[in-house]
């Protein structure tokens, strides 16, 4: 009996222990899926970097729908994560609920910046995507020969309007006469996950004369960039550097440096310097930008974008945030 009990307790300890690692990063992905070649994949790659460079353990959760998020996050907390990354605005409620019950675990909430934080254990990061989008909008307008450019968004929410707004303002900053065709894929979660619809929207914009298309549509964006490449026009990627997907048909990608955020916070957790709070990160913090690697950004475009970036960072140029309207 004793033997059985000890086997039991050993296996129990094995299943629930987290003692193998001093620290463990937990990642809860957004509904676009882990391998969306964009937002979620960037978080995954960063978590891998935390594992490789800082020697942490990693636990992941991919939710099939929004109702599972909180449950999944609790499970990660129970399994001994020291820092949990919640990807996307849809996880706000889950982060609030779980962080209240686990005061010792640190949370990083990406795209969430409005939660009360009684335990002071949430690092809330929102990005000024409109500033980064402004820069790629400028480049799109400079690259366009037809004077018409396109934008394909995922789900129609204020966050995506922010991308669209920055892009249109940037394009108009360079060329006041530019036409911007903008489409949203849908109004439900499915809109992040419908590349066929994304391709169709892009084809419609190409028929309308667009020769540069910017996507902020999660997994749907894979279809957008594919359709752009098929038609021989240029696409603009989002969140992570997507230029490698279609070399020769990618102008640039708008970078949202959540990789820097996550890695930095992991280091802070390790050194005990983690600070909770609400952070709005933009060009002046170096947390949004554009990618040149594998892209087709000319030196002229880069110079113009960098000049505008300096103006935005210094406050001389203000990009309106359409999500606030």
């Amino acid at each position, binding site marked *: 009996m004793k033997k059985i009990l000890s086997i039991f307790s050993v296996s129990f300890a094995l299943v629930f222990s987290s003692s193998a690692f001093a620290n463990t990063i937990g990642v809860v992905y957004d509904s676009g899926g882990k391998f969306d070649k964009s937002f979620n994949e960037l978080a995954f790659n960063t978590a891998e970097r935390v594992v490789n460079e800082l020697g942490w353990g990693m636990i992941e959760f991919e939710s099939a729908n929004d109702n599972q998020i909180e449950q999944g996050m609790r499970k990660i907390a129970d399994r001994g994560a020291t820092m949990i990354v919640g990807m996307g605005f849809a996880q706000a409620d889950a982060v609030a609920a779980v962080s209240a019950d686990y005061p010792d675990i640190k949370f990083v909430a990406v795209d969430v910046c409005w939660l009360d934080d009684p335990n002071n254990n949430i690092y809330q990061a929102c990005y000024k995507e409109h500033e980064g989008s402004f820069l790629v909008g400028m480049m799109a307008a400079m690259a366009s020969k037809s004077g018409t450019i396109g934008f394909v968004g995922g789900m129609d929410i204020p966050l995506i309007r922010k991308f669209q707004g920055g892009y249109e303002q940037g394009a108009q900053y360079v060329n006041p006469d530019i036409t911007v065709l903008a489409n949203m894929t849908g109004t439900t979660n499915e809109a992040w*996950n419908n590349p066929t619809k994304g391709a169709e929207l892009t084809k419609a914009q190409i*028929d309308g004369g667009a020769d540069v298309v910017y996507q902020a549509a999660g997994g749907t964006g*894979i*279809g957008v960039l594919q359709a752009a490449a098929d038609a021989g026009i240029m696409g603009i990627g989002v969140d992570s550097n997507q230029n490698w997907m279609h070399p020769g048909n990618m102008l640039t990608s708008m970078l949202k440096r959540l990789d820097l955020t996550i890695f930095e916070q992991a280091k802070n957790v390790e050194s005990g310097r983690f600070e909770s709070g609400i952070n709005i990160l933009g060009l002046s913090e170096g947390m949004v930008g554009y990618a040149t690697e594998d892209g087709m950004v000319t030196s002229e475009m880069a110079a113009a974008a960098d000049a505008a970036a300096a103006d935005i960072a210094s406050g001389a140029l203000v990009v309106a945030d359409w999500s606030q309207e």
Partner: protein
Amino acid sequence: MEFLSDIASLINSTLRISTPLVFAAMAGIFAERSGVIDFSLEGKMLMAAFVAAVGSYYLGNPWLGLLLAIIVCVCLSMLHGFASVTHKGDQVVSCVAINILIIGLTTALAAAWFGQAGLTPTLNEDQRFLEIHLPFADALRDIPVIGTLYSDILSGHYVFVYLAYLSVPLVFWIVFKTSFGLRLRAVGENPSAVDTAGINVFTMRYKALAINGVLIAFAGAHLSTAVNANFFREMSAGRGYLALAAMIFGKWHPKTALIACLLFGFTDALQIRLQGVELPAIGEIPVQLIQALPYILTVVLLAGFVGKAIAPNAIGQPYIKER
């Protein structure tokens, strides 16, 4: 001229969006005309998309990918038949089981084979179906009306678009003009009478399901190897269910089902183009309302213009031979 090219773009878009719906609706007609409910069009379309993408990635030829997709889809149809025809299980339950199985299976297999849950590697140009440009399309473009009609509308589609619309008269001919079709319809209306005449009800239903599997495979391959260049988690996105609705809308008849599919495609294509456009006197319509347009139109048409849809008499009932 700009008006004409806008119209051409709208028609092209309608044809493209409707293509998977047409294949799926035709597949549904075969199954349901024989008396077997096929709710699993959605799952089979998804499986076909997956198999076609994986097949053409490994074999280097999209046609071989399509062939594999056909084989797998026919197997799935046979599975549905085995459960609901041979073993007389509930047809809807069998379909739902297939749908759920495939959502999980495609994601898991992609994770196991390519290390990326729900995504297959991007296909290159040799591994995909590309748009077909008909001969003289460029030369004839400048001729007014005929040029637009031929070069911009008729030319420049994926092979599946042509096949989908060619399949409709073929399905019509098989179902309504051949003795096979007569038996097929009879099995769905009054299986015991057919049995009395010495025709095996089970064999007929299996044959119908086999054709159903072949047709639905085209819809899936269109999604993953023509419009897109890889498989994506749940990429069928409800098109199977929409096709089923179109088939019922079209009263289980190929011609009317085609019209229903085109209507769904048209409203979808229209809503893409209406987004953000200022309409005279009304102003800009909110995106939410525009995106609800296909559904509103469907309800209005269904309530007002389409008469009563009468299903095949024996649909959903497993045939039990009297002892």
